[in-house]
Structures are given as structure tokens and as C-alpha cells.
């Protein structure tokens, strides 16, 4: 006997992709915002912030310098000094806001676009260029600034951050850890496993997802059919969507997520809703897959402009400050230009260095053989 399925006589599926209705969440506004695109300060029931004028100018300065550095790097790629560049254009607020929420003893696991966060950590910007120039795969000491190397294999750093945070908790420290990743990365199994591990061990980690609407050519709808911040709830920790072009909101939301972690309440997912204003990288051609109008619409939400409007309207930033910042920007750009031209190519034998910490007989053998091979040319020449 088989229980008869009531559905057995149903007609064929008509709409193959009916899509999902977004479950309404009436209890809170979807997007945390403290500064509107027009540069107006607004309040949010759960997130507030109170910054000194100095701090506000500092945030502005961070964003301006980051953008300038980024533009310079893009230019250097065009001039052939870099093989590739991944621009953060448009994501300055998400990165500076979250980056400035961190304590020195917090630890950052970035992906490959976190130039603004690196800036906040005090990583010398020219150090970021090494991998894009092709002279190394990451030119800084992760432990000097508690800023891990850029990670290219999408999503994998979410687990490193979680493990690091498990270690922080084991040490009894109240530091916190932050993992950056993109909307595309949210689909990777590793990110889901990081959610599971961090929740189960209650690890002090903040998952900071910069939803810049695109994973190369794929819009976010190819990764999820509901807003990404909602992903967290099913793993047992809170998710919040913040206006990623609002540096104040990003700072406030990240800060409270970090504090939650410090208090031993475990992970939080922050979705910073922002936009990738440029190409995915300098190798990419976005005209193949997205319309100019979309980008233009986001220009009106520019993170730097809105803070400038606010700062000038409130008299926090005057022409003197802005002019000085312009000079500082030019200086930074020049410094970067000069540094890149001085950046030495690695020594050929660096191929064999640091493969192992304790050495390896095969590497030794190959190094010796290759050195002899190289020397044989010198002989021929002499």
C-alpha cells in the first residue's frame, strides 16, 4: 500500500522561478543609517554615535586619503607598474567605519580589497602594492598591525578569523576579530562553516560582509534571494544591515558588534550595503554586464561627499582643513608613486625561500641545482 500523494494530480509547474517573497520584518528598519546621502544626521533606535569634531574630521581624512591612494594605484596599473589592481572605490565608508571601530589588539582577516581597513591598521599603503605588482604574495608582517595578509581564495579567511577568535577566547583576552568578505563569498561553504563554528564556540568574531552588489559580473541575486544579513539568524547570532556608504553607521554598528564579541556573546554578521563603483579589478570590463545608470544612481550616495556636506554644513571642516587634506593627498600619491618605482624585484632564489619554516631536503636539492644552473650561464658569459 502506498499513501496516495495528494499532489499527484497537480498541473505542471507554470512559473519555474516564482521567486520568494521577502518575509517582512516590521520590528526594525532594514538599513541602519546615521547620515543620509544628503548629509543629514539621523538617529537610529538601536545604534547611536557621538564623535568629537576631531574624530569626524579623522574619518573624513581617512576616506579621502584611502580614495586617493586607490586612484593612484589604479593609475599605476595603467602605467604598467602594477599587474592588477582591485579598487575599493565606493566602499570607503564601509572600510573606514569598520576599521576605526577596532582596537589595536583586535585582529583583522581581510580579503583582497580592504585597502581602507589596512589604512586604519597602519599598514603602509605601498606594502599593499607588492602582490599586485607581482613582487610578493603579501608584503607585510601580519602580526605587526594585527592585519592578516590579503586572501584570494574566496571565503577561506572566514575560518581563519573564527579559529583565531577561538584562540583569543582561550587566552581569556577580550580582543575581538573581524573577518571581511563580499556578497559573492557568502555562498562559499567555508563562510557557512565559519558561521557554525563561531556560533558553537561562541567565538568573539565579527563577520563584516561588504555587499557591493556584485561578484565580478554576478549581481547579488545570484547568491541569495533574501538580504544577506538575515543569514546569521539561522546560525543563532544576530545579523544587521548597515548603510555601507555611511561611515558613522558603519562605525557604530561594527563597534557594537565588537563589544558584543568582547562581552563573550559571540559572533555578529554585519552586512554593509554598498556599491562597487569601479570595475571588479583593472582586468574587468563592467560594461559587459551592468548598466551605467546603476552606477550613476549610487554616485548620489557617495560616502565621502555626504560626510563632507555634513562637516561643512556643521562648520566642522573649513576650507583650510580641506585644502590641507588636498595637499596631504597629493603627498600620499607622490610617495606611493615614488615608492613603487623603488620597489625592488625579488631575488630569483626567493622562489625557494620560506617554503618551509624548518627546511625540506627536496627544496634544498632543487635550490642547489637551480643555483648551479644559473651559475652555468655566468660561466658561459665570462
Amino acid at each position, binding site marked *: 500500500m502506498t499513501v496516495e500523494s495528494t499532489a499527484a494530480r497537480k498541473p505542471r509547474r507554470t512559473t519555474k522561478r516564482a521567486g520568494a517573497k521577502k518575509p517582512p520584518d516590521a520590528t526594525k528598519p532594514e538599513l541602519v543609517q546615521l547620515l543620509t546621502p544628503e548629509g543629514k544626521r539621523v538617529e537610529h533606535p538601536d545604534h547611536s554615535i557621538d564623535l568629537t569634531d576631531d574624530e569626524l574630521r579623522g574619518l573624513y581624512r581617512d576616506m579621502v586619503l584611502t580614495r586617493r591612494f586607490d586612484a593612484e594605484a589604479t593609475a599605476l596599473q595603467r602605467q604598467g607598474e602594477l*599587474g*592588477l589592481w582591485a579598487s575599493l572605490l565606493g566602499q570607503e565608508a564601509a572600510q573606514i567605519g569598520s576599521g576605526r571601530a577596532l582596537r589595536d589588539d583586535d585582529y583583522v582577516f581581510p580579503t583582497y580589497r580592504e585597502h581602507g581597513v589596512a589604512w586604519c591598521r597602519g599598514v603602509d599603503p605601498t606594502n599593499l602594492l*607588492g*602582490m*599586485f*605588482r*607581482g*613582487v*610578493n*604574495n603579501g608584503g607585510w608582517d601580519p602580526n605587526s598591525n594585527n592585519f592578516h595578509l590579503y586572501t*584570494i*581564495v*574566496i*571565503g577561506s579567511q572566514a575560518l581563519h578569523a573564527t579559529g583565531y577568535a577561538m584562540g583569543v577566547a582561550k587566552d581569556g583576552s577580550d580582543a575581538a576579530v573581524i573577518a571581511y568578505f563580499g556578497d*559573492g*563569498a557568502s*555562498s*562559499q*561553504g*567555508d563562510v557557512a562553516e565559519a558561521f557554525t563554528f563561531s556560533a558553537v564556540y561562541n567565538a568573539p568574531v565579527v563577520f563584516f560582509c561588504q555587499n557591493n552588489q556584485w*561578484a*565580478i*559580473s*554576478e549581481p547579488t541575486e*545570484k*547568491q541569495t534571494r533574501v538580504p544577506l544579513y538575515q543569514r546569521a539568524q539561522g546560525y543563532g547570532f544576530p545579523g544587521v544591515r548597515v548603510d555601507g556608504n555611511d561611515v558613522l553607521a558603519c562605525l557604530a554598528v561594527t563597534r557594537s558588534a565588537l563589544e558584543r564579541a568582547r562581552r563573550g556573546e559571540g559572533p555578529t554578521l554585519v552586512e554593509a550595503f554598498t556599491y562597487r563603483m569601479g570595475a571588479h579589478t583593472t*582586468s*574587468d570590463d563592467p560594461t*559587459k*554586464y551592468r548598466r551605467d545608470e546603476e552606477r550613476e544612481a549610487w554616485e548620489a550616495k557617495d560616502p565621502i561627499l555626504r560626510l563632507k556636506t555634513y562637516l561643512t554644513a556643521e562648520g566642522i571642516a573649513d576650507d583650510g582643513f580641506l585644502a590641507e587634506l588636498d595637499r596631504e593627498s597629493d603627498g600620499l600619491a607622490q610617495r606611493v608613486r615614488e615608492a613603487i618605482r623603488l620597489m625592488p*624585484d*625579488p631575488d*630569483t632564489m*626567493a*622562489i*625557494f625561500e620560506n*617554503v618551509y619554516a624548518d627546511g*625540506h631536503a*627536496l*627544496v634544498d636539492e*632543487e635550490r642547489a641545482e*637551480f643555483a648551479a*644552473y644559473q651559475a*652555468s*650561464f655566468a660561466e658561459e658569459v665570462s
Partner: protein
Amino acid sequence: MAADIAAGKPQKLPLAKAINESLRKAMENDPKVLIMGEDVGKLGGVFRVTDGLQKDFGEDRVVDTPLAESGIVGTAIGLALRGYRPVVEIQFDGFVFPAYDQIVTQLAKMHARALGKVKLPVVIRIPYGGGIGAVEHHSESPEALFAHVAGLKCVSPSNSADAYWMMQQAIDSDDPVIFFEPKRRYWDKGEVDTESIPGPLHRARTVREGTDLTLVAYGPMVKVCLEAAAAAAEEGKSLEVVDLRSMSPIDFDTVQGSVERTRRLVVVHEAPVFLGTGAELAARITERCFYHLEAPVLRVGGFHAPYPPARLEEEYLPGLDRVLDAVDRALAY
């Protein structure tokens, strides 16, 4: 151009375009053929190998997937079980590893697990190898990690005609095929005759005849070996060059035939030498040609080190000089 191709007129095509045309042909011939991967739709893939296909065949057949390689291969397996023939793109060599479990424990074994009752006609395209000045994870040659695994077939074309035809054959195959595309040859043009099949998928091909030594290579290194043979010829050395074409199975008969004549063998690949394809060729050809070999089989390939940053790749990659150095060493025996 597509019209010429359709008319079967031999065309000079870049290797990437040859694959594109081959995919188009396969999709026209069989509605069950699907393209899946990251950015394969509107963008046409980061190398434009699937350019225009979504426009012509629709989103149902050229599927932009979520950014998750295990998911891509895992769902391709499910689609294959349903009767589809998915052709999956992995964006770069270094990003195949999240899918490695699905490939090794599921895709490779499912036909055997089911005692032959199900078939897994899945093609996994992997642009591989270095030489394009890319950042980490974009220049690797992981073929040995797949060839070691029973249930998979691994091939790599070295030129446009093979790219076109081997893709046709890979899609036709009822077995999973890992299709390694030599990314630095994507832009190299070659004649493609869409009417005449250049031979079985897993047959090696002698691409230059010689008498003193055999060079075996595949994919991107075939060109380097041909150049080395040309350079050696000027010094009066006659090198035979065999394009292996298939790393699993390997056509040992063709290599053996060559080595029995030349009595010396050098294998060249970009992948690390240690446990690379050359190790297997050295072991098996030495066994088959023990009394013929005048010198041990020498290998030229990558070092036991992570693929270096771009500014070092010229030194890291086997080039003309390193191949000729090995040739000289082999001839010195």
C-alpha cells in the same frame, strides 16, 4: 566567423575562441549540454571562453552560478544524474580545490559505486598554468592531483584544433573529464578544421620527428618544446616532440615507440616535478624501455615551492634554456 565555422571552412582561431566554437557546436547538437560556472553568462567568463553563449542559448543553458565551487560541481553531478551533460567552468586553477571533494569522492567514483548503472558525463574546464603575470592562485598546474584519481580523465590541448576537437570529444564522453586549458595559449591562433577529427581524445601525437631524444609535453609546454627542438636543430641535435594531450590515461605506447627509437626522454611540464606527470612517465617508460634507454628519463618542471609571484615566474617556469639544459644533460650520458 561563426557562419564560416558552421560551414566547416578551416579557420585560424585563437585557442579560446576554438573552445567557444566547440561549446557552441555541442550545445547546438545536444539540448542536454549545459554551461555552468561563475561569470560564464553575460561576461562570457573572465577569459571570454563562453562569450555570447548565454545570449544565444539563454540563462537556462548557460548558468551563472553562486560563488561556490563545491556547489557548482555537486549540482553538476545532480544534473548529470538527471540526464544533462554539464560543462563546468572553474575560473582559475587555484580555485578548483573547494570542489575537490565532490570531484574525487563523488564525480570520480559514482559510476563505479552504482556498478555502472549511472553515468557522469561532466566536463570540468580549468584554465591552468602560468605565464600571464597573474596574482597568487591564478597560475597553477594541478593536473597530477586529478590524474592520480581513478574515475577521472584528464586532457589538455596545446593548440586551437585540438582545443576544438578535444572539447567535442570530452563532452561526448560518458566519463568525467577534467579539461585543462593552457591559459597562456588562449590567444595563440591556429587552424581549425571543423570537419576532420584529429584522432582519439587520449592519443598522444608526435608533433615533430627526431632521432636523438624525445621531448614529451602537453598543454602550454608543447610550444616551448617545439621551440627547443628548433633551437637544438640548429646545433645539429634532432629532437622528437610528442604532445601527450592526455594525462589520464597516458598514451604510453606512443611515447614508448618514440623512445625505442631515440633512446632518450625528457619530460616537460609546468607542474612541480615531484610526483608530477613526469614521474609516472619516467617510471613507466623506464620499465618499458629499460634496455633501450641510454640515459635516465630527465624531467623539467616546476619546483617544490608555491607558484612564485609574477616577477619570478619566468625563472620558475620551464623555458627554452631549461629544456635545452636537460636535453644536453640527457645527451651527455
